[in-house]
């Protein structure tokens, strides 16, 4: 479980997060919504212990983030960046192996056991056949899955994903979200940011909406993402309707008006 209590953060005299209270239990998928520049990334950086809050606390499994060593923390919480822009064409397997570094001694190198673990993670995500390919030469969706595999081998149960589908086409975005959802079913706590309220409605258990550094909505996606909240959040008119697809009902957003 990860929670924040009265989390505040400012860059210099410019406050970004104001008294943010957040809580995610085990096995939930939380989407973080908010307009550009609202501090979603700053929020994530605080959760990951990269930034020290100006005041307030970030608590992971009962212990303040600052009390973990970097190595211990990496076994609690993992980070999946928005995109991966490699300079060198490491193989997919090597990239995933990097996630195991903190479990190795300083002068140790990954061996057969580590390789098997990395391959198993790739297998879980359905991209084991890419193991020997260069990470520069696979598609954006495949690369996102590779980054998720790299996070999985860290053995952290909390995954932070910064706009996991931002650079993906429609089909790949769907496939990646399906895998993320499957991980949630496997007991992972996943917190991801998105600019797409449809994605929040479709996939997440909870929505956490930030505006002007404060929380304006926090609760189950279906009930909390109302037309009023969306208007407040993005400053445009949005209609939320229910549609039928493949025998199930989904709620979808349609922006309109001027």
């Amino acid at each position, binding site marked *: 479980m990860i929670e924040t209590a009265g989390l505040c953060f400012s860059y210099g005299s410019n406050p970004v997060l104001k008294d943010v209270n957040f809580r995610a239990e085990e096995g939930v998928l939380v989407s973080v919504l908010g307009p550009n520049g609202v501090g979603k990334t700053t929020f994530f*950086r605080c959760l*990951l212990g*990269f930034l020290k809050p100006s005041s307030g606390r970030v608590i992971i499994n009962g212990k303040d983030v600052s009390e973990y060593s*970097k*190595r*211990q*923390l*990496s*076994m609690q*919480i*993992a*980070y999946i*960046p928005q995109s*991966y822009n*490699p*300079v*060198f*064409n*490491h*193989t997919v397997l*090597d990239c995933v192996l*990097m*996630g195991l*570094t*903190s479990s*190795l001694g*300083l*002068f*140790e*190198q*990954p061996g057969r056991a580590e390789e098997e673990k990395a391959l198993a993670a790739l297998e879980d995500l359905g991209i084991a056949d890419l193991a*020997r*390919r*260069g990470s*520069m*030469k696979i598609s954006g969706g495949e690369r996102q899955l590779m980054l998720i595999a*790299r996070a999985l081998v*860290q053995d952290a149960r909390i995954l932070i994903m910064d706009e996991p589908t931002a650079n993906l086409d429609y089909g790949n975005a769907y496939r990646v979200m399906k895998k993320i959802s499957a991980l949630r079913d496997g007991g992972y706590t996943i917190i991801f940011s998105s600019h797409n309220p449809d994605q929040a409605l479709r996939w997440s258990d909870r929505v956490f909406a930030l505006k002007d550094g404060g929380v304006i909505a926090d609760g189950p996606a279906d009930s909390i993402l109302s037309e009023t909240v969306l208007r407040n959040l993005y400053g445009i008119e949005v209609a939320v309707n229910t549609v039928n697809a493949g025998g199930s009902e989904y709620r979808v957003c349609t922006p309109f008006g001027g």
Partner: protein
Amino acid sequence: MKEKTAYGFKIIILSVCCLAVFFLSFFLGRYDLDFLTVVRILADRLVRLVSFGKLGLMQTWTSAQQAVVVNIRLPRILAAVLIGAALSVAGASYQGMFRNPMVSPDLLGASTGAGFGAALAILLGFSYTGITLSSFVFGLSAVLLAYLVSKASRIQTTLAMVLAGVMVSSLFSAGTGFVKLVADTDSQLPAITYWLMGSLSSVKAKDLTFAVIPILLGLVPIIMLRWRINLLTVSEAEARSMGIETGKLRLVVIICATLMTSAAISISGMIGWVGLAVPHFCRLIFGQDYRRLVPSSAIMGALFLLLTDNVARTVASSEIPLGILTAFIGAPVFMYLIITGGSSRDD
């Protein structure tokens, strides 16, 4: 695993080539030597080294032959091996650390600093050892200065380091320019110019003993930490979330690479291209993983500099400076790599 045996096979072939060129190099030069004599002299040296001088082979060679092999060719060949390996490993490490394949090991000013140190020492009439020492010390100081400036800066670390390196390099090359201006044009200026072009022709056994310690001090930690250099090629945030202290690792890599580069340059003069080009040859053959890249760069670098130095001392009647040759050989090969997109090759 199949891929692993392929790697083992390739590295053995590379090592055999390197050893072959190593022995071949003893026979090149104006003084002719036959195979058995060289083998006997070397075996004798080895036996004496292992037995602390108590044992040795019966001398069937002349003392002139021994002098050529032991005092002239052996130090020079060993220097080529050591310097080639050091510059290539330092280059590979820097390229990973700065996330930039176009970086060479003197990015932070090691070679311009060393060049200034040597030029100054020549101007002040220092002995040969004095020139080596001064060049080593100034090489280290240049990098230290660049590092301190980048630490004091508020810009993002790697960018600040690159900028500080550029600044320090131009400062020291201006210093070298000034020294050349005031140097005596008959004796000092040619010596400075020749030093700056790089050569192994005057390497003595004592230079080697001086350089071997800093080079090994740099080489061994990098070889041991080589897996972790991979982590420096991903973004700071990613490495951190994986539990890696990139700051400390980066500092260790800088210290090791600088020790190696400064020590190498202080006895060879400026040799460009090796540290930039050799890691790319290796990427082409061995892939991107630093577990393989570091050892293969060391061997490939040794081989490359041995070959270049052999050309330098045999092709023309007078020695061709190494710095010129490495560029002549390195640049076309590198152009080929850029055109064929070598480093982004897919496996």
